[in-house]
Every structure is written in C-alpha cells, then in structure tokens.
C-alpha cells in the first residue's frame, strides 16, 4: 500500500498531465454532439458579451459599407416589387388560382427573424459563426441562416442569448440543393480549401448541367424553404468513384464581410421529422 502511494506521489505530474490531456481530447471529440459543451465555446455568457461589446465598436467602422449594401439591397427589392406588381396584374384574371395558391400556403410554414454576426472564423477547416440571437429569441438548432446574397449556414448550438452557426465553409456542413431548371437534387459540401468555392458531390449523371447554372436550396430538408440562391456552377468533373458528377460551385455569399443575417425556421418541422422518423423505424 505504502509503495503504491509513493508511486502516486512520485509521478503525480504524469497523472495530472494525463488528466488534463484527457479533458482536452474529450472536449475535442464531443464538441459536435454534446450540447453542454456550449460553455466552452464563444456562445457562453462571458465570451459572448465581450465579443458583442467589441462588435458594437467595430460596427461604426463598417457603417459606410454597410449602408451602401443596404441601399443596393433596397434598390433591388424595390425593383423586384415593381416586377412582382406587373406580374400580379397579369395574373389578376386567374384570381382563383393565386388566392389559394401553393406558394402562399408554403410561405405560411416558415418564420423569419434577423440576427447580427458577432464573431466568426474563416481560416480553419471547420469554421463557425457566432450570432447575437439565442434560445430566448426563439432560435433553435437546425434553423437555416441566409443573407441578401444567399445561404450562409445552419444553426448548430444555442445558448440563452447567442447561437453558433455552422456555415457552408465547414467540412461538416451538408446542404440539400437543386440546380435551377432541373428536378434532381444533390448535396453541397465544402472540401476545406477555397473560401469562395464549394462542391456539389452527388450530381446524377443523367441530368444535364452547364457552367453558370444557378444552384438553389431544394426545400427537402425542412431547414430552408425551396429556392434560396446558393451559388453558380463553375465546372463539372467526375466524382472519385465515377458514379456521379462533382461540380465546383462559386458561392454567392461573401463570407469575409457578412454582418446582418436572416434566420428561417419551419413551423411544422417537428411534425415532418416525427413522420420521417417513424418511417425509418418501420424499416
């Protein structure tokens, strides 16, 4: 007994070293699906508040650019409104159809909110963005995040006042997409290298695509409504196993200057998920 105690005392720093490294590795491994790990991220109270203070100060330096972008966005929106008005008057005759149309019903299924970026990284293989809205503002995990340029990412973790977004620029992010003008859908996944490009990894071979085709969200995953722009196809190549095409996509969102974001949530998401899950169980 004495000799065991002596051994413990003699090598106590080895035990401390192993313990600390063990804690680090556990944090590293369980960060992704371990929700209480939120304390060790920038969504915790202290880090989040310090970051939002800094962002308040930094915000002043970007006001000019931000204003320019808002003015531009306003201009686009009013143009769109005009176009919509014209289109609407053209359809006035078939009011019956427009009145109970599928579009109106679909829009009612989603709720929209806004948020501001308070911290983010771009240089890693797994990047994250911290935003200033959390569970107290109704933000939950698996909500979609986009801005006026296109899709930004998906909410990964929330604390009371902050949330962490898994952007497209994260090797773990996967988003269900569709090439505009075709019905086949595919998955968007980042390979960890270039900031403005991502890849569609499973384009079916029978479908025809061209350079410059627009990629939009498919709406299948109940995270994003269908039709939010993602990017445009730059070139096509064979996938590693030759079963699919792999397309390089230029992303519309400029991740180095994102600031104001929209958050979208599906009102009947739970219902859809429970239904899909019960289906999986039956198999």
């Amino acid at each position, binding site marked *: 007994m004495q000799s065991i105690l002596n051994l413990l005392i003699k090598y106590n720093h080895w035990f401390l*070293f192993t313990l600390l490294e063990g804690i*680090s590795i556990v944090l590293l491994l369980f960060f992704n699906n371990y929700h209480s790990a939120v304390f060790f991220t920038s969504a915790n109270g202290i*880090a989040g508040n310090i970051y939002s203070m800094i962002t308040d100060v930094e915000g002043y330096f970007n006001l000019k650019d931000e204003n320019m972008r808002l003015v531009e966005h306003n201009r686009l929106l009013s143009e769109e409104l005009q176009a919509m008005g014209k289109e609407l008057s053209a359809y006035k005759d078939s009011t019956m159809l427009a009145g109970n149309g599928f579009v109106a019903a679909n829009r009612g299924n989603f709720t929209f909110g806004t948020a501001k970026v308070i911290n983010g*990284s771009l240089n890693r293989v797994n990047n994250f963005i911290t935003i200033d809205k959390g569970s107290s503002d109704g933000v939950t995990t698996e909500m979609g995040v986009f801005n006026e340029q296109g899709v930004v990412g998906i909410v990964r973790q929330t604390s009371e006042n902050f949330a962490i977004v898994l952007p497209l620029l994260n090797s773990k992010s996967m988003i269900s997409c569709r090439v505009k003008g075709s019905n086949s859908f595919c998955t968007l996944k980042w390979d*960890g*290298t270039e900031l403005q490009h991502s890849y569609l990894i499973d384009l079916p071979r029978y479908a025809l695509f061209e350079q410059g085709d627009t990629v939009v969200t498919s709406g299948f995953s109940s995270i994003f409504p269908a039709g939010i722009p993602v990017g445009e196809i730059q070139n096509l190549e064979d996938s590693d196993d030759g079963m699919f095409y792999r397309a390089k996509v230029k992303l519309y969102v400029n991740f180095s200057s994102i600031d104001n974001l929209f958050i979208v949530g599906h009102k009947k998401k739970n219902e859809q998920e429970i239904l899909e899950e019960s289906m999986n169980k039956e198999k």
Partner: protein
Amino acid sequence: MTRSTLINIRNFTLVLLAQVLVFSRIHLFGYATACIYLIFILKLPRHTSLNALLLWGFTAGIVVDMFCNTPGMNAAAATAMAFARNMFLATFTHKGLPDDFIPGAKSIKWGGYLVYSLMCILLFFTILFLLELFTAGHILPLLISIAGSTLLTMLFVIVTECFSFSK
C-alpha cells in the same frame, strides 16, 4: 497568495485578452496565426513546479479555445508544451545561474533562449494543427500552417525579449 502569483495572474489576463481580441483574429495569408500567450508559459520561472506549469498551460489553452470555438485543441497543445518546457529548458541551464531564474536572453543568452522558444513553439503548433487535421484537412496546408505560425510567433518572442532586454 504570494506577490509572484498575483503578478502571474495579471500577466495571464493581459496576454490572453491581447490574444483573443487581437492576435487570434489575424491570419496572415490565411495560414499563419501568432499565439503570443505562449510567451507567458515560456517566461515562467525555472523552478515553477511541473503541476503549476501544467495548470497554467491548460487554463490558458482552454480560455483561448472558449473564444475561438475550438474546444480542447489549444488546451491539449498548451498542456503538452508546458509539460515539455522544463526538459527543453534543462538543456540550456548552466552553472552560475541563480537557482530560480526567468528564462530569457539575459539568463541563458540569446542563442539558448531562441532555440528553447523555437522547440516549445514548434511542438505546440505541431500538436495544434495535427489535432485540426485529425478532424478533417489536408497535409500540405498543414505543414505551411505549422511553419508560418511558428515563425510568426517567434517574431513576437524576439520583439518582447528585445523590450525586456533593454530595460
């Protein structure tokens, strides 16, 4: 609590604030990031107990992790560096030094201090970027990142040492 502990806590807070608010946000050419908080561990006195070194390293790492959304990565690397520090330092210790000296250009000469810092920092970044590769990544950018970040941090080690040397 002794005076030296209070000074350590003050330095710790200052260097970590600078790290998370300024240096962690600078990514030179997308590859090199300076980890100046390592200087704090490098400069702890020679006879700081190994357990204290480990705890300082781990705490510094976990705080940086909290702010950078990399739970465990910095903590693991900084703990390992703190563990190896005294072994590296022993290589450059010679007789005639006071018992509890602070590692620096004054005590172990410029050459000794630079090689000692380089070994520690290289070890730190190798572990850090290997852990990042372990989650997902590519080999070549990894090597560039290790080399770039080590050189950039060494630059700050030299600059800080020049200031404290001239005093």
